[in-house]
């Protein structure tokens, strides 16, 4: 794969509206996960990383669309990108998009009411956003569970690598509402407190809201920054809602990603793991990372800072990795105290100043999917 460079990026989260704001809060150890009492979302109080209740509630765009608009606007502004350029493509990533519109509608009307199902459709949001910025090309939407953000990056890399486009604006967002909260609750997957990835006492996830945008390009003028070098996706072929027991399939995806990047395990300086803080996910990841020969590489999970931001997670966490590379600084994996996986990893427990050349970002999701990308500077 040809080198594909990062032009600009943005994170919009409860921690801030730019990558810099977000990273400075993370360095200070500040988490967006809080206890919330919101009867419209859940009968009982819960821990999650949410925007203020009034965020994104007015105007013609939904909250999901507003998050994307704000994030994309900052990233293309910083990168001085012209969306009208016919060689530029917009790629969006989300799991549930406008699902909250279903919650206030009469039962069954999302299917039966043509206006509502069109308004909820992810391609409608994509068109509204593309029109807002005057993108020249039809946008692409990816909805592939919790690997959506990584798959969106990888799709951009592939479309640029094949010569179909020179630039891609890759953005992802998800909003937490009763639908998503009740669903993960029904799986008994939500922690009653702040989540603790890879820790012995981990007992589930926190959900989070946010958006992230990365602009990628193969153009000469952007050469010299951080570049995306390879990636892969795979499936466990095991279970639709539980990860592989062996981690072999995620390991294979990591190996394929390293091979495409032309790197060996020994050249990876940091891993940004998925680390949801469920018993099974973290155990599977630990096995996969060990099997790939990466068990001594510093690793963290950002889920205790941001919660699980679903379709935005792969982007937000990749952007934090980019910022870590720029500052040669690995963030501690918040919530981790005692090893809780069968194959101990080198979980970062304090700010680590180290030269970062090549890093790996992984993700796994419902449907048995796994994904990884490799970045270098």
């Amino acid at each position: 794969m040809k080198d594909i460079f990062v032009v600009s990026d943005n994170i919009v989260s409860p921690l801030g509206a730019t990558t810099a704001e977000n990273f400075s809060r993370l360095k200070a150890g500040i988490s967006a996960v809080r206890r919330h009492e919101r009867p419209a979302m859940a009968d009982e109080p819960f821990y999650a990383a949410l925007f203020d209740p009034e965020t994104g509630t007015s105007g013609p765009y939904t909250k999901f669309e507003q998050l994307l608009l704000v994030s994309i606007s900052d990233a293309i502004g910083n990168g001085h990108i012209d969306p009208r350029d016919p060689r530029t493509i917009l790629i969006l990533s989300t799991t549930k998009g406008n699902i909250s519109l279903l919650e206030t509608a009469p039962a069954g009307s999302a299917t039966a009411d043509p206006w509502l199902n069109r308004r909820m459709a992810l391609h409608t949001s994509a068109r509204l956003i593309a029109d807002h910025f005057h993108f020249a090309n039809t946008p692409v939407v990816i909805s592939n569970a919790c690997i959506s953000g990584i798959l969106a990056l990888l799709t951009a890399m592939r479309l640029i690598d094949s010569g179909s486009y020179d630039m891609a604006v890759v953005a992802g967002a998800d909003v937490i509402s009763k639908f998503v909260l009740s669903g993960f609750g029904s799986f008994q997957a939500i922690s009653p407190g702040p989540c603790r990835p890879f820790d012995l006492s981990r007992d589930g996830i926190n959900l989070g809201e946010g958006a992230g945008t990365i602009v990628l390009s193969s153009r000469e003028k952007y050469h010299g920054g951080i570049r995306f070098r390879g990636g892969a996706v795979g499936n466990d072929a095991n279970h639709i809602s539980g990860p592989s027991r062996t981690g072999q399939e995620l390991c294979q995806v990591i190996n394929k990603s390293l091979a495409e990047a032309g790197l060996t395990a020994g050249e990876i300086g940091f891993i940004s793991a998925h680390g949801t803080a469920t018993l099974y996910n973290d155990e599977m990841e630990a096995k996969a990372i060990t099997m790939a020969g990466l068990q001594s590489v510093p690793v963290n999970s950002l889920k205790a800072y941001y919660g699980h931001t679903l379709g935005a997670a792969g982007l937000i966490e990749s952007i934090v990795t980019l910022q870590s590379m720029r500052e040669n600084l690995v963030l501690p994996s918040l919530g981790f105290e005692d090893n809780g996986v069968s194959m101990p990893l080198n979980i970062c427990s304090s700010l680590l100043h180290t030269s970062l050349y090549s890093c790996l970002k992984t993700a796994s999701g419902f449907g048995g999917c796994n994904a990884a990308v490799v970045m270098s500077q």
Partner: protein
Amino acid sequence: MEHITATCIISDHIVYTNGKAVFEPPSAEGQDFLLSVYQHTGVQYPKFYKMDNLSKLGWLACELLLRQGFRSADYRPEEVAVVLSNANASLDTDDKYFATVKDIPSPAVFVYTLPNIMIGEICIRHHFKGENAFFIFESFNAAFLAQYVHGLMASGSARACICGWVDVLGEEYKAALFLVEEAGGATPLSAENINQLFQINTRHE
């Protein structure tokens, strides 16, 4: 050069494989139609009954697609990709899940509120461990699909790919799956060819 080596289209209560109508139940609608196609396959697969309509439709189309000469022994599990798309994501099941929330939220329904679960069901059934992707477009986007699948195969990320469109919303549905392989076949992978094959049930033959 990649070729389309098999197709399966399920639309308007008719199943087509490789361009020919092969099954049309006497009279059936929605759920009953999917059940009659399942019975037509002759497969015993208890997990089928737990799936939502989107997964059932995609699973059935894939089952019948792979009977058109696919040789699984020619591929390692990680060499087979599944790349699907639709317009309505999992909205049909989203509605059904949210109806359970007022009473007791159902994890068995919630898990199907992601369109890529259908890819997971296909991968479990056929033991495929390769590339996955689920894309949302307003209407079938043959140009993008051809471009993406060609990219996967040309770069060596996949040696075979099951790709296409599977959409369900209420009583409306359509599945159109294509098997793309490296060599052989009379139909090269192209947007034009995919589009033409996709339109089968609207042609009057």
